[in-house]
């Protein structure tokens, strides 16, 4: 019988292979030995994190990321029956993610959305070139815990600040965390505009979101 470490490795490798069949087989194999939450977090999510790293290194491409995310969703679905009542619907947090107004860059933001979703967050990707007020309205609508703001141009970067200011005006800043990212953004910029965190890439975005929303 495979050890827990071997099963975790198998789950992770199956996700990296981006093959749904392999993921489902690995989940079935691990089911009797590990708790569903452990299978998801230590096996599937860890594999997904590795997929993100390989994408950033040019070893895996966008269709692979999507296939891996699809396979992970399928794996999580078959584990839901074994989860304690109420745990199935429980998400790690609700995140509204988008690219700020005037900026049509989409790819990086979409990868971040996919990775956050795969990590267990409920993600509402509201697209690119999004007006400031739309972020706040969507956050109200879905009762978001966090807003993710992407900008790929120095000229659109101030839009991130605009969202934070509107959150303050609406009295929502205390309960909605703000993450910023995109090529011109930095930790110094995040500090300057009062964002809660800055993430350099998709893997870091997942880690920072977990840190902020779950204290992990």
């Amino acid at each position, binding site marked *: 019988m495979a050890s827990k470490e071997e099963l975790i490795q198998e789950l992770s490798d199956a996700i990296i292979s981006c093959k749904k069949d392999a993921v489902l087989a690995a989940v079935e194999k691990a089911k009797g030995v590990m708790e569903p939450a452990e299978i998801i977090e230590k096996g599937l999510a860890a594999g997904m994190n590795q997929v993100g790293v390989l994408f950033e*290194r040019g070893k895996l491409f966008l*269709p692979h990321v999507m296939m891996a995310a699809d396979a992970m969703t399928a794996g999580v679905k078959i584990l839901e029956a074994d989860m304690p009542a109420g745990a199935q619907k429980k998400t790690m947090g609700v995140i509204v993610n988008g690219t700020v107004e005037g900026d049509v860059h*989409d790819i990086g933001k*979409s990868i971040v959305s996919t990775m956050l979703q795969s990590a267990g967050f409920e993600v509402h990707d509201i697209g690119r070139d999004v007006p400031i007020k739309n972020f706040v309205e969507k956050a109200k609508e879905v009762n978001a815990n966090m807003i993710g703001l992407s900008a790929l141009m*120095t*000229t659109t970067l101030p839009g991130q600040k605009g969202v934070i200011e509107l959150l303050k005006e609406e009295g929502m800043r205390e309960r909605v965390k703000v993450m910023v990212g995109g*090529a011109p953004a*930095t930790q110094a910029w995040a500090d300057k505009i009062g964002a809660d965190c800055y993430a350099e890439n998709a893997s870091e975005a997942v880690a920072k979101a977990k840190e902020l929303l779950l204290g992990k």
Partner: protein
Amino acid sequence: MATEYALRMGDGKRIFLTKEKILSEIEAGTAHAADLGEISALDGNELEKLAEILMMPGKAVSVEHGMEVPVTHDIGTIRLDGDQGNSGVGIPSSRLVGCMVHERAFGADTMELGHIDYSYKPVKPVVSNECQAMEVCQQNMIIPLFYGAMPNMGLYYTPDGPFENPGDLMKAFKIQEAWDAMEHAAEHLTRDTVWIMQKLFASGADGVNFDTTAAAGDADFYGTLHAIEALRKEFPNMYIEAGMAGEMVLGMHGNLQYDGVTLAGLWPHQQAPLIAKAGANVFGPVVNTNTSKTSAWNLARSVTFIKEAVKVSTLPCHVDMGMGVGGIPMLETPPVDAVTRASKAMVEIARVDGI
């Protein structure tokens, strides 16, 4: 207390570092490029030389005598007459005046004419205007004047174009449909670019510049390589420059190949042979600046990638140097200390043929 030297962060912020810290940043930057690109890191002499360039006392530095290289200018004249929304300085001037200023005042060795939208697709409905502008400029100028724009394949996707956005299709796990959209868009990109350049070449253009190739990923690169190939076939003497959008070709499609090579995930030294194979005359490699890292780290990383591209390229390499690329900070008006140091390092260490 150890002497500290004025450097920059990748976002342009002024920092002060000791020689030891500069060297450690350079070593980390070159190691990062070597790891990603699976290429050689800079050697000891090159590390020392780079540190020396970064620590030079003058605000602006230059290459040694005899090492001067040709310089050209992309983005047309938008840098002059555009506003800060598109990286310009807002000086009211016609495109003819802009081109002539580059030739006669800035000392550009070549120049390009470009439209304010600066993408090939929007040029289609105004191509007659562009042809007329090209003719007028050619009648007033001596240096080679290209026509230039971005392939910008994103304009062929909704809401700007006829094909559904593959990013949206991917999110809905419609991968085959996303692949189809990208392949159709690439065909249109090739067709439009060739059609536009047929007109511009007939109007006296000395060449064409593909600026920010592969901005929309591997399919954008695929469409551009086929456009270069078609133009070379039709115009054997046309001067073709292909500059990249970023250091690595993003794998939006993942399966597209050119000359038997998968385009997704290629680094500058892997892009160069394909650009040559397609029939271009000059390759413009790019390395992105990380805004959270120091200029020492960024420049070492950029020089490492570009040195390898120059080594393997059969074409002259005119490295892209500007805001956010080539080790230069991402700032609307890049600081002269960083720009000149990065340029000197590219010429004297990476041995680029032009900028």
